[in-house]
């Protein structure tokens, strides 16, 4: 990438990322163990209880994550490469943030309207397409999906105020 020197700087080192993921998995494992113990994790008279398998699954997650954590802590600073560079992270966020906003919008505006907005803005901002082209693809895409899902296959997808206004819900 030609983001300049600044772009190649590590936004987060591999070591940090390894440690974070290992800790996160350990936490998940702990949650699983906690709920399994509540359900009963012993081997009953007629085989394992509901929590038996999840308990050991949780335990193995914790143990293997602990080992992964140990390995991560041993990464020496001079060998510690970048997990993601600033320039890369920027590009990733350029997709991730709109996606999160898009999913948020779906609950409010329905999937068709938010998809049209999402596709249009994505094309306009990232692809630098002309407004009319972006809009045509965005709206056309939503109309096509509306026909496929709602009309032909009768699969109800989330709808919002616009569909209600048009009497399409």
């Amino acid at each position, binding site marked *: 990438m030609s983001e300049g020197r600044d772009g190649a700087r590590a936004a987060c080192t591999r070591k940090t990322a390894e440690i974070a993921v290992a800790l996160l998995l350990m936490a998940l494992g702990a949650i699983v163990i906690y709920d399994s113990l509540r359900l009963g994790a012993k081997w009953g008279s*007629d085989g394992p209880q509901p929590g038996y398998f999840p308990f050991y699954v949780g335990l193995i997650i914790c143990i293997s994550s602990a080992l992964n954590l140990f390995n991560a802590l041993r990464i020496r600073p001079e060998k510690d490469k970048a997990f993601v560079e600033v320039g890369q992270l920027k590009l990733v966020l350029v997709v991730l943030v709109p996606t999160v906003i898009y999913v948020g919008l779906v609950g409010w505006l329905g999937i068709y309207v938010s998809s049209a907005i999402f596709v249009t803005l994505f094309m306009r901002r990232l692809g630098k397409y002309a407004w009319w082209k972006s809009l045509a693809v965005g709206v056309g895409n939503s109309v096509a999906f509306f026909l496929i899902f709602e009309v032909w296959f*009768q*699969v*109800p997808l989330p709808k919002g105020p616009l569909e*209600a*206004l048009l*009497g399409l*819900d």
Partner: protein
Amino acid sequence: MKPKLMAAAAAFAGALLAAWPLAGEAWEPTKTVEFIIPAGTGGGADQMARYIQSLVAKHHLMKQSMVVVNKAGGAGAEGFLDVKNAKGDPHKLIITLSNLFTTPLATGVPFNWRDLTPVQMMALDEFVLWVNASKPYKTAMDYINDCKKLGPGKCKMAGTGSKQEDQIITAAIEQKTGDKFTYIPFKGGGAVAVQLVGNHVESTVNNPIEAVAQWRAGKLKPLCVFDTERMPYKAKITGTMSWYDIPTCKSQGLDVEYVMLRGIFMPGGVTPEQVQYYVDLLQKVRQLPEWKEFMATGAFNQTALNGKAYEEWVAKEEARHVALMKAAGFMAAGSK
């Protein structure tokens, strides 16, 4: 026109359109009706719901369309909670199995049939005690007594799901006879029947439709039906027997009765006109010759109630489930 004005005009026009049907006498759906199945695709409830949907569409019984949605999570709790939370929404229907009663009791998920509005009982599903045809048993008690002799837990009973209808019947048999069975839950009725054909288990309480093919092929045989009366279908199914020829379990000395509700409910807080619309709609479905054929194929008990009688039936059935499940120890910790 300024944008604001335009929006206001549009909103007004929309409101007018939405209010239009209310001006008439009877209520009618104004948008697509969602028909929820609190079970997976391919099961008995799913088949019935999709059949109703297809009949409604084929005979143009409704102006709006009906879509079927499966919400099977948490033994159907997902579907019931969805309808419970849609209070006052007249565009949602749900078909029930016995999990209407069993799921809240066994899992402690907070819902009750009183959160819903009963619309119409479509039919009752029968349960038959089946054994492998190669076994020497002639009557239900032959089998039960043999199991007693073999010792507790030696007879294996396969069924669909856990702490639901099949296991409740098993528990009820245990309570009446003092036998102890090993109940093994499977995912679907077809798999259960095949386990019995393969001699991996000793008996099942499959619905008629789940085991009829194996019966006709001479692989399974029915011992008795868990209803108060014999099934009324007298057409021969095998060379020698019809559904009517299967005796009731009670007449055999096995005093256990169980039928499963196949009924339609709506969310709570809907108006009587809205309920009446669906009652009329479902009555029309029940009058169709295709429906009668469907009933005969599955050897259903064709009792169909609505209104007060339906409500009373459901209340009675709930009390019975609570008693049965309490005695069997199926209640979730914390549910009363």
